[in-house]
């Protein structure tokens, strides 16, 4: 929830001279954020921009890829510049880097995926204030070499992405009974037979509050499996 707790958990890779490309430490940078240190369900960062776009899987995937892009390149840029960024304007520099990358993503989406870009509306812009990104810049990329930073970026963005896509899948399958893919059309997940027995799509799933409840359930499931994450009220 705060950056202090993050720093304690971070493996110190900066001082290790030569290590294999995918040492166990580096691998943990990729895999930790997927479960034990998940940005959304454990660190509680970056929920703001995440949930509103989980109505449809394709929107969620595009959003997730945008975040992966911004995190990956952002972490690399900050890590490359970490020794020359004047500490007094550090936060502003980080903000400028995120904002520029997000503008790039937004312009590219507008040019190549206009329909999805329209549906994502302001939420692409809100990647800027996605706390995960600034949080990782400050907590990791400012103090680590380029390669680990890149891995950390991908790891955290993927941790964010899978929750996003999982929520979107749950909402679209139960809300519309089918997932629509661009170019392929809709693929039905609920067999027609169900509808004959009186099954109905739950329209509530498409409405915003259900996103929160689905995340709540994901947290419940995750913490039942991984009991060390349970909070003391």
């Amino acid at each position, binding site marked *: 929830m705060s950056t202090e707790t993050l720093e304690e958990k971070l493996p110190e890779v900066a001082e290790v001279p030569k290590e294999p490309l995918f040492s166990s430490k580096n691998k943990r940078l990729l895999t930790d954020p997927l479960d034990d240190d998940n940005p959304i369900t454990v660190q509680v960062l970056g929920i703001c921009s995440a949930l509103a776009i989980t109505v449809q899987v394709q929107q969620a995937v595009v959003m997730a890829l945008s975040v992966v892009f911004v995190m990956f390149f952002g972490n690399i840029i900050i890590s490359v510049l970490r020794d020359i960024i004047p500490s007094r304007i550090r936060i502003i520099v980080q903000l400028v880097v995120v904002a*520029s990358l997000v503008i790039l993503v937004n312009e590219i989406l507008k040019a190549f995926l206009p329909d999805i870009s329209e549906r994502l509306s302001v939420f692409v812009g809100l990647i800027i204030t996605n706390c995960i990104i600034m949080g990782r810049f400050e907590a990791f990329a400012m103090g680590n070499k380029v390669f680990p930073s890149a891995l950390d970026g991908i790891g955290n963005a993927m941790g964010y992405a899978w929750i996003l896509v999982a929520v979107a899948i749950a909402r679209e399958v139960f809300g519309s009974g089918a997932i629509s893919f661009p170019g392929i059309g809709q693929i039905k997940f609920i067999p027609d037979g169900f509808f004959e027995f009186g099954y109905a799509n739950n329209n509530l799933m498409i409405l915003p509050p259900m996103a929160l409840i689905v995340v709540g359930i994901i947290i419940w499931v995750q913490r039942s499996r991984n009991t060390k994450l349970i909070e003391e009220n």
Partner: protein
Amino acid sequence: MAINKNSNAFTFTFAILMVIIVGATLSFAAISLKPRQVENAIQKEMISILSSVGVEANRDNASDLFYANIKERITLNHSGEVIANRQGKVDAQDADDPFNIDVQKEYRNPNMKPEDRSYPAYLAEVDGTELVVVPMVGKGLWGPIWGYVALKGDYNTIYGAVFSHKSETPGLGAEISEGFFQEPFEGKQIYDDSGNMVSVDVKKSGDTSSDPHAVDGITGGTITSVGVQEMMRRTFGVYDKYFQSKKANITELR
């Protein structure tokens, strides 16, 4: 040479360099992607116009279908006189091209009186039928609503109508963009028997299927329905003179 990273000079140089690099990169990206974005916006408008004349288009075939079906684009002033007309390809740079007139922007501009606005129309020919498409904008409950209404060659009977909205209530006002609201418009007439402009009312209740000048409103979406009605009456009011002159032409030819 050691650089003092905490000196003001270094901080300023860093900041200035950063601004220049970021500015240059972003401007380059924005400028090089702009044509595609403009193209996308044009395609989107073409798709809406085509759907009002019953032609289903997607982004790939929008411009082909548009040029095949829409013969001429004209702009009227507030008194219904033609002030510009264009044929052939849409030129995004040409501010007078009726296609480039942003009726929503003009409608929203508080400094622009109705008399100053431009009123574009599209003359179409679909499967041998002559049609005229009228774009319109108005106000719903929460934000702007807009639509395209296509009239048949008699400048009276509605051939098709599509409406859209920015932020109407889902399930209520937002239903104006659904087929069940738009389809009843087909076949309705905007002039009464004695040739007066009456537009089409959006009625709150009652059976409207036999009334040539009314359709059913949306239950619970009264303000949005009234908005559609107001938008059509106001817009057709401006085009009235143009339609009248065209109708006079038709009778003469007969």
